[in-house]
């Protein structure tokens, strides 16, 4: 990361860097003094005046978060509001150790601790406990992951395995998006946004109550995102339009609470496709395509306090969607049931156990380039877990042991245990360490797919390279060793360090089979088949550091840095590997750095900026880049918020991702500007 500074000897940069460092070194001018002044002032106010005061949100950082023995970062509504992030993938850029690369107008490559390629499959993403991971190829359709951003309560991002609780596929990270309880979203909200990309975005929400026990909200959101450009400045044909409508109901009684939510969405995403594998010259076809999708979900969750020492949580959901991805059509229905019981009967033990079952059925329709055999399949996933948090030395040392036990139709039984220790030598200091095993279970793709992914002329016959599913493909495995330290120095300054060593086995690679001649379809052609096999192993290690400092009441600074290295190799070196999977697995930047500032110029005006540095990718596909986002927020009235923002301001456009193997042409990510108005009533 350092050569960019070496390259530019701009004095202004050095001066301001110096200023910044000096300002950090200055004595922290009376944090408590300011606090005291504020309190003294507040105490002089009458109760009416007190209740008339406008207050700023304080991020809820429950003690449990400080105590977590995992590399966890929580994104608060304040972060979302101030950064002005337009999409959930953009919000995730705030987390050190998460790699976010935008492919085009609707697609992203997002990874935790590496592996952010287009078919990223080691990340679990949930909204209110509903899994968004597609069993088709174990990835996430990021353009479908959306809601009214103001209605998000928090986003918990866990880097590293979370499989003991969350189950298979929570290998490299878990992203848990939690929406607000309806009681928190009372009243109306109307929002409109217009800019170089959003043309326009509009959202509305209304929340109310039925009596004292039940609160509700319903909402609609829709947007049309204009296309970006290609490297040569032509239209990239990557516009996205999407709309969604939903409702949520929350009831709470003495000992229990019930939540119900439902949503419907639909959308269309343009993309430029570069498909290969055709049998006649030029063997590939570049075309402008549009994928269409629609779907929805129903989720209900019930929580009951059985007694002082035990409570139970039951969750049931259905999701369904249909999508035409151009290369394949997929229709999927999923039902999921989960039960969790939390028991604190013994003073030194906190026990959580649960059981769950998930049934999913799909129906696919293939094309020349991609087919699934069988075209339709249904699978069942059974799971159970048990975890005990043991207080070993009171208020000083805890040990959490547990395991998930799962059975899936592809790889059978999977056991994913973990042991986590946390040690608090004194208040505000926490050391933690963990060893865990997680697996990424096979997806439909690895077992059932046939992809014609490339072809060329060799002598008189065309040659076609083919990827073929393998029923013997097994789970990918990770044993992770993690260590971390958290320090809450004062109420206003905290530091978080996490390190990891990941030992991967049985990762997905390909093995070339014996070539054969095929006469149908004509012209007759030579087929070189490749099948998915578990033939890659390796290790990665890295460190993620983040710090947050409330410098003054009106200024907050946050910084993050992450470094990692990933080394993979074939476990069957004697085999010929034409596809070079290793290179696509090296889709990650070694260094990432970010600094963020929230600055209130007056009670109604704030300036917020983020600067990100992303190192060049190890696979050499993406060069290093800087990204600078800035947003000015103005609240002329209590009910009205106006924002003007810009993203990616330092660049004239850069590539953030090359979606290897997807047949999708990536776009240049340009600077983006917007205006946004939000009115509450």
């Amino acid at each position, binding site marked *: 990361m350092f050569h960019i500074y070496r390259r530019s000897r701009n004095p202004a940069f050095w001066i301001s860097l110096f200023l910044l460092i000096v300002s950090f070194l*200055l004595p922290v001018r009376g944090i408590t003094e300011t606090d005291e002044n*504020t309190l003294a002032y507040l105490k002089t106010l009458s109760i009416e005046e007190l209740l008339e005061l406008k207050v700023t*949100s304080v991020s809820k950082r429950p003690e449990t978060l400080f105590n977590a023995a995992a590399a966890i970062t929580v994104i608060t509504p304040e972060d979302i509001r101030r950064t002005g992030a337009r999409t959930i993938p953009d919000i995730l850029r705030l987390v050190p150790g998460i790699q976010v690369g935008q492919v085009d107008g609707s697609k992203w490559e997002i990874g935790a601790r590496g592996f952010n390629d287009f078919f990223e499959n080691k990340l679990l993403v949930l909204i209110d406990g509903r899994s968004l991971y597609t069993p088709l190829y174990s990835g996430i359709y990021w353009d479908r992951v959306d809601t009214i951003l103001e209605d998000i309560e928090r986003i918990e991002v866990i880097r590293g395995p979370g499989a003991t609780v969350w189950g298979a596929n929570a290998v490299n990270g878990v992203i848990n998006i939690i929406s607000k309880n309806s009681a928190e979203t009372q009243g109306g909200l109307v929002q409109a946004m217009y800019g170089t990309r959003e043309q326009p975005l509009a959202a509305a929400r209304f929340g109310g109550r039925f009596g004292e026990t039940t609160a509700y909200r319903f909402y609609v959101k829709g947007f049309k995102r204009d296309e970006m450009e290609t490297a040569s400045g032509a239209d990239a044909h990557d516009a996205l339009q999407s709309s969604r409508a939903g409702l949520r109901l929350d009831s709470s009684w003495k000992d229990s609470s019930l939540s119900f939510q439902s949503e419907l969405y639909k959308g269309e995403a343009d993309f430029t496709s570069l498909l290969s594998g055709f049998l006649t010259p030029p063997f590939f076809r570049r075309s402008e395509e549009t994928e269409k999708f629609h779907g929805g979900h129903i989720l209900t969750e019930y929580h009951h306090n059985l007694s002082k020492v035990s409570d139970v949580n039951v969750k049931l959901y259905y999701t369904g969607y249909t999508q035409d991805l151009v290369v394949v059509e997929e229709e999927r229905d999923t039902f999921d049931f989960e039960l969790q019981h939390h028991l604190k009967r013994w003073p030194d033990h906190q026990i959580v156990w649960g059981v769950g079952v998930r049934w999913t059925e799909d129906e696919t329709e293939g094309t020349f380039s991609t087919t699934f055999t069988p075209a339709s399949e249904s699978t069942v996933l059974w799971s159970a877990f048990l975890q005990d948090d043991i207080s070993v030395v009171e208020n000083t040392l805890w040990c959490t042991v547990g395991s998930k036990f799962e059975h899936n139709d592809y790889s059978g039984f999977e056991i994913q245990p973990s042991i986590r220790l946390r040690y608090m030598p004194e208040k505000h200091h926490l050391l933690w360490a963990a060893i865990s095993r997680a697996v990424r279970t096979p997806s439909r793709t690895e077992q059932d797919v046939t992809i014609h992914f490339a072809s060329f002329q060799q002598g008189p016959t065309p040659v076609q390279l083919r990827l073929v599913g393998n029923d013997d493909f097994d789970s990918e495995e990770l044993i992770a060793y993690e260590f971390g330290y958290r320090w809450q120095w004062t109420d206003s300054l905290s530091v978080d360090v996490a390190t990891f060593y990941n030992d991967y086995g049985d990762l997905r690679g390909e093995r070339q089979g014996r070539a054969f001649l095929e006469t149908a379809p004509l012209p007759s052609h030579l087929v070189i088949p490749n099948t998915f096999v578990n033939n890659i192993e390796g290790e990665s290690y890295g460190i993620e550091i983040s710090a947050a400092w409330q410098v003054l009441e009106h200024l907050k600074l946050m910084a993050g840095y992450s470094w990692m290295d990933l080394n993979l190799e074939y476990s069957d070196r004697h085999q010929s590997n034409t596809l070079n999977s290793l290179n696509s697995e090296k889709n990650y930047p070694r260094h990432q750095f970010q600094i963020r500032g929230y600055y209130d110029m007056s009670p109604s005006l704030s300036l917020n900026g983020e600067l990100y540095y992303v190192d060049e990718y190890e696979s050499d596909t993406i060069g290093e880049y800087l990204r600078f986002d*800035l947003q000015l927020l103005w609240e002329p009235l209590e009910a009205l918020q106006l924002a003007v923002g810009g993203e990616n301001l330092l660049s004239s456009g850069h590539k953030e991702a090359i979606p290897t193997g997807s047949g999708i042409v990536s776009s240049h990510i340009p600077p983006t500007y917007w205006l946004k108005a939000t009115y509450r009533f």
Partner: protein
Amino acid sequence: MSLALQLQWCLRKTRFLCLAAFLGVLSLASAGVAPASPQTTEHHVKAVFLYNLARFVSWPGLWMERSEYFTIGIVGNPPFGAIIDQVVTGERWRGKPMRVVFYDEAEDISVRVCDVLYIGADQLRHFDDIKERLAGLPVLTVADTPGFLAMGGMVNLVRKQQRIGVGVNLQAVRYSELSISSKLLRLATIVD
């Protein structure tokens, strides 16, 4: 230098000027040169409100004679825990020194000690036990969690957009032989 190189150089220069300006603003701001604007956090307001609340509530005389202190009990982990201590230290209520007593868990509460009892969100699931133990004693129960009044709590501080709102459950207040001044009631949302 070719034109392309020159352009690239200019671009890089402006990019770093932008960056420099941003870092500069941050530095100046962090050094405290920028004018301070008193921004009030929810926690500050809630802490001061809790302290103020006592002035609008009357306790039965006999009850108040039991202790030389006016005590605000706090159970659980309210985010303004440290602030309330700071607010109350050195203050008096009708001549009695005010103090804050913290309890980690509901079981630890000594009900006869508190005049006001604040229940943190994390301990609300034990509120039934707390109520049972209070058994009608004139202890003002306060929380800042939606739904608290429905559970039989007395005063609830709820965020309403950018302000703090007060909800009062009059039935629960009366049952405990407390009375709340009409001045506060005028400002509050009443649940009967």
